[in-house]
């Protein structure tokens, strides 16, 4: 500062004004960032506040113990939809998470520096898939599992959701594993470890936190999907554990209630959104705790 100040003092006026201009630009940048951050925070609080205001009145014990009645006078609860969403998340996760993780491991660890035809094709397809409107995967599930089975069912819904998860998990896994320094890999291989030992014992544990984040992002995304379920699981007013039947889900139930004409059902619908957010929060925290424990026990 002092050096710049000294030269501009002794120098020509042009230099000084250029310096002033740079300062204005610099602070302009700073305030633009601040303003945008404020806008984001405000928006977030608006959404959250709106949900709480609308959803809290509908929260009750019955919400978790009763199923839908179909009667606008006494709409009942959301037990069937909560169970349905949890089952759909579990089923789609069982398929989508391992496939996504392993594909990501391939892209980052086994493809030659990410070059090579299979790697580039996988990455391209993943990027395209991640950008495909979710209703398209719903239609795919419809063609693959609804039409052959003759009726809407939970398997088709879970598969459609898994289709959405795979590219998200694969790409975040690849990105996160790439952040692990190569010196870890070299160190492990130089000690006589195989590639799979290196990945399982050094590379993946070093990235566990971010891998979990990627998986949770995919689960959250999927848990909030409605469009692919319209064509596949359809929905069900009764509690069912059988995925070969039309299957309930929170999002579909909320959609039906909130867009419907009855105030009593709207209240339950708004409460359902709060429940969905709470489920994701609990899931996120518990998966993180479990993953952290698993890593600690091995290292």
């Amino acid at each position, binding site marked *: 500062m002092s050096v710049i100040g000294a030269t501009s003092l002794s120098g020509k006026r042009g230099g000084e004004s250029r310096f002033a201009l740079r300062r204005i630009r610099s602070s302009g940048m700073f305030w633009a960032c601040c303003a945008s951050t404020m806008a984001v925070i405000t928006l977030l609080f608006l959404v959250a506040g709106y949900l709480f205001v609308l959803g809290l009145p509908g929260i009750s014990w019955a919400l978790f113990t009763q199923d839908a009645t179909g009667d606008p006078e006494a709409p009942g609860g959301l037990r069937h939809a909560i169970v349905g969403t949890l089952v759909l998340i579990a089923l789609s996760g069982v398929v989508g998470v391992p496939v996504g993780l392993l594909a990501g491991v391939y892209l980052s660890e086994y493809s030659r520096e990410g070059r090579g035809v299979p790697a580039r094709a996988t990455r391209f397809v993943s990027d395209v898939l991640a950008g495909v409107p979710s209703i398209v995967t719903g239609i795919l599930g419809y063609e693959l599992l609804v039409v052959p089975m003759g009726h809407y069912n939970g398997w088709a819904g879970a598969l459609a959701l898994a289709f959405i998860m795979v590219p998200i998990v694969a790409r975040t896994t690849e990105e996160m594993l790439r952040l692990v320094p190569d010196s*870890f890999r070299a160190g492990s291989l*130089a000690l006589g470890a195989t590639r799979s030992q290196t990945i399982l014992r*050094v590379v993946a544990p070093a990235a566990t936190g971010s891998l979990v984040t990627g998986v949770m992002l995919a689960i959250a995304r999927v848990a909030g999907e409605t469009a692919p379920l319209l064509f596949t699981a359809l929905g069900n007013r009764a509690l069912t554990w059988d995925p070969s039947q039309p299957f309930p889900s929170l999002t579909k139930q909320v959609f039906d209630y909130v867009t419907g004409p009855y105030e009593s059902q709207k209240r339950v619908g708004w409460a359902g959104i709060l429940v969905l957010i709470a489920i994701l929060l609990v899931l996120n925290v518990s998966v993180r705790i479990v993953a952290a424990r698993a890593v600690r026990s091995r290292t």
Partner: protein
Amino acid sequence: MVVQAMPGRDCALSMNHPPIPSPDAAIAGGEARAGDAPGATGFGFGAARQPKLSVLEAIRRGESVQGHTHAAVEKEAALLRVRDFKLFYGKSQALHSINMAIPEKRVTALIGPSGCGKSTLLRSFNRMNDLVDGVRTEGTITLRERNLYDRGVDPIDLRRKVGMVFQKPNPFPMSIFENVVYPLRIAGERKRGVLEAAAEKALRSSALWEEAKDRLSESALGMSGGQQQRLCIARAIAAEPEVLLMDEPCSALDPIATMKIEELIHQMSGRDDQSAGGYTVLIVTHNMHQAARVSDYTAFMYLGRLVEYGPTANIFQNPHLPETEQYVTGRFG
């Protein structure tokens, strides 16, 4: 012959020279022939009508040059033998017909200016170069007369016998204990007692036990750089390798940490105390003083060729070639 020029494009060089001996003969008998040849103290380019060409110039021109190996090296029992070893990264050749014998339970230093291939040569001993795309080798490197590049040799197995310490300390993001026992873990060892005994032994050998014994379960990333590097040495020797490769192990460390590592290298070779293990150590270093301090033998490399190789004292105080003298005294490179 001290320096031999391959018959090649530049025929002026090769005209007055005997044919190149086979690489094996070059190692086994190079010194004896050098003694027989008249005027062996200079270069082999004796004829007056030929331009006097230094070894390094010849190398720069792409001539094939066989390095000068001092007789004392051959008197030691060799654990590793490099025979006519060439290495290519794609189309560019990084190592040119390297011939050298690495004495058992001694410290051998590889020195030379950047890009001379010393790290590449080091990584050839545990086949870490296999991990680089497009690497191709010719010739052999034998460990106890077994060629490391034979089809039947599993690099995973090899790397258990030939440990490596890297330039930058690279402890894994685990506890100190788990870092040290990592080689045992991947070999399938599960008994707590065995792991603990191995960890203590390795940490004692790397002079880290006193500092680390009360914090074995803490993360290794919380240690200082010098401690981390000694941990990496402990980890490498926990696998009980025969050979320890060190790729500029002190270049990221401060002088005191460097001193500790150098002491460690000195002890590990088992020169003073045979009970201390006795590893065959190969160390790449940019620091000439370090090479002089820690090593028994020193090899000077230039542009992928071995130029001169002999007892460290000879290389630094009484080198055979003026080029070596110029390099070790810091006049080039």
